[in-house]
């Protein structure tokens, strides 16, 4: 069974952390992953940086630009992750935009992910319909789970469609926004979380965008299986360095 599915079966709320590979330093990737696992994070999204990250706010744009300047590429990332499964057991997901994968070759990319022990992918600009028609069989061949986003504007009908194509979890974007855009959840968001909760989807949901601290994490996980933190974590290591990961994770979980 895929590590993601196994993790989702655990009887607890999940904390997933996003970081941009190659940032702050090109060779920080492995140590960030190891530290996150050691400090109790349940799942990790490794950001493959892209020059034009449309769905991201300033924090992740900035970390992506710097990572690329540091020399991060698809090839470099795969090399860094080559032995990651010798030390790390939690699910690992690569999150990135579609063009770099297309240039690497979608099948070659998926194959490499399987070799390394990557469990899934999140590709914000690969729409579910295109995935379904052109790429699903390739992803499945290499045992990868593809995760799709839904937003407060996604129609019920489309949510059911996305649910039917998904085989891991659904990434529930907390509000109509790019990453890192807001803090705290209002009534509008909680009623959206409730609405989705009542839809009885076959895939559990994990909430992302706008989660930055213990309060928002606790709030989000009342409605969903887990929550994803990205910008707040990237900001934290920008300010305090990668040695302060423990401090960050503790601040979320306690």
């Amino acid at each position, binding site marked *: 069974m895929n590590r993601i599915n196994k993790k989702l079966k655990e009887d607890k709320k999940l904390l997933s952390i996003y970081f941009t590979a190659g940032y702050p330093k090109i060779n920080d990737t492995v140590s960030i992953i190891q530290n996150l696992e050691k400090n109790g994070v349940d799942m990790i999204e490794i950001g493959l940086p*892209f*020059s*034009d*990250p*449309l*769905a*991201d*706010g*300033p924090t992740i*744009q*900035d970390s992506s*630009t710097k990572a*690329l300047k540091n020399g991060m*590429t*698809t*090839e470099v990332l795969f090399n860094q992750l080559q032995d990651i499964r010798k030390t790390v057991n939690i699910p690992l997901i690569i999150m990135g*935009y*579609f*063009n*770099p*994968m*297309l*240039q*690497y070759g979608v099948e070659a990319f998926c194959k490499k992910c399987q070799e390394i022990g990557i469990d899934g992918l999140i590709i*914000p*600009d*690969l*729409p*579910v*319909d*295109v995935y379904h*028609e052109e790429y699903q069989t390739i992803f499945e061949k290499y045992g990868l789970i593809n995760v*799709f*986003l*839904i*937003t407060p*504007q*996604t*129609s019920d*009908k*489309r949510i059911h469609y996305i649910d039917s194509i998904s085989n891991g979890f659904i990434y529930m*974007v907390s509000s*109509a*926004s*790019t990453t890192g*855009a807001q803090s705290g959840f209002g009534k509008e968001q909680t009623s959206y979380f409730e609405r989705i909760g009542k839809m009885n989807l076959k895939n559990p949901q994990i909430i992302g965008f706008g989660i930055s601290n213990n309060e928002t994490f606790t709030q989000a996980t009342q409605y969903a299986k887990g929550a994803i933190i990205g910008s707040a974590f990237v900001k934290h290591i920008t300010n305090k360095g990668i040695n302060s990961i423990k401090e960050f994770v503790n601040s979320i979980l306690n």
Partner: protein
Amino acid sequence: MRLKVCGMKYQENIEQVATLQPDYLGFIFYENSARNFDSKNIPKVNKSIKKTGVFVDASIDFVIEKINNHNLQAVQLHGKESPENCNDLKHRHAELDSAPYPLEIIKVFSIKDEFDFSVLKPYEKSADYFLFDTKGKLPGGNGYTFNWNVLNNYPSTKPYFLSGGIGINEIEDIKRFAKNKASKYCYALDVNSKFEIEPGLKNISILKEFKKNLSEVLENKKEKAMNYNVNEKGYYGEFGGAFIPEMLYPNVEELRQNYLKVMDEPEFKKEFDKLLKDYVGRPSPLYFAKRLSEKYNTKIYLKREDLNHTGAHKINNTIGQILMAQRLGKTRIIAETGAGQHGVATATVCALMGLECIVYMGEIDIARQAPNVARMKMLGAKVVPALSGSRTLKDATNEAIRDWINNPVNTHYIIGSAIGPHPYPDMVTRFQSVISEEIKWQLKEQEGRENPDYVVACIGGGSNAAGTYYHYLHEPDVGIVAVEAAGLGIDSGESAATSVLGKEGIIHGCKTLLMQTTDGQITEPYSISAGLDYPGVGPMHAHLSKTGRAEFMSITDSDAMEAGLELSKLEGIIPAIETSHALAIFKHKTFKPDDVVVMSLSGRGDKDLQNYIEYFKI
């Protein structure tokens, strides 16, 4: 050609035929037919096979019900359905939420030994395909072929289905037909009764044999190279589509479902035409450039888009899109701009309509294009600097897209070129197509013919070019020349010649040619002209390049600047530097003395004065 197998009836037989992978399967919903499909469900078949419902003068409700129940992607209308009926059906279909793609409408006409092709004309807009069947006692399924030579006089460029009595004995005839001029627009073969054991029951082995013997004809799906318009999924050949994050889906989908419908409304057309006339100043003149023609010993006509209000073609599109935004109930307008031309054109129409306007512009461009920044501000727009990435046009576009993600309900994004996710490239192209619509009658007046020998335009994203080519795309005697910016030279590392330096990839929501690293990171182009300084090219142009329909040329900064100066001296017209790139081709390409070359003079040079002054030390 493609293959359609029609008159399917029995579950198991349908599944068997589907394994042969025809392109279409037809189901007849007509009680009087021996092949009337009356089962509850059509079994699941491969998604690539289009399920087609065949109807004879049925009510719209009946057709819609069948589409809904059976997930039909196409309908074939065999009766006396009018063009209005076809349009109504399209609109009703677009309103269904179960309609991921526009419905394909195939209108049937019956032919015996001759045919009056003028009856097709009213259906040109409302039908996607024509189907020619043999005239006989029954509405289809008469079992013998008509005289295919009649199609030698086919006056349209619309792809058609060839039908009527096609069977295993026609294989040689079809091979001959496929080599013949009459088959140029033949999109598919439609077979039915000649492959039956009994009505509705197809003989799989004979079908298989037919398909195998005709494999050469059937595998040559040549309409791909022949159709330069967007298809129902938003692709031009392999380019286009909508690669957007889910956050943008509702907005883009709303636009996709509505744009054609809205553009078709008589009220919309009236308002658009009136504004183009009274506000923009159209039609723009088609000017015979006598001295320029003498110099290059050919006949050069300049389509004077520079005389439009705000000084370029950009306003054709912004007028169209602001009316679209109003129809969709949007109150807030965003746009990206490079040189500021599109920003000014957007700020202008927002002032005209009293709508809030926010223009994203790279920080570096804001510094380079101060006069246009001031114009936008005077017009009441807010100019927001794009501070990310390289802080130029591509980043301004990213920022506009991010704004749209953050404002999904009240905002319309007016994209300034024939780029972006479907339906933008097609919508922008249609709004700009007024350029070639006018060229046709203007040239007729002056030269006695609608078709020039060449149409020429410069390409940034490709909107003035798309508009200039649009009505000539399917006229094989009209050569298309596309002019890109070579910057300091193709191999200099400082260039924007996308068709040469670009590779297929995804930029700003569409699959097209773009300049990128081997790792798939989008690179920064360079051109002296801010309007051509874009790392991609619209998907239609990528397709024109790939298929060879257009000849792509690249022009350096210095050649362009010289050509701008030359036009000023020879004709008293100071062009925008973007346009100067197109003008520079005469130095590199020789035309015949009696060739008629129509060039889009996309903009005036006022905005570039400072550049010209510095370059020529005037």
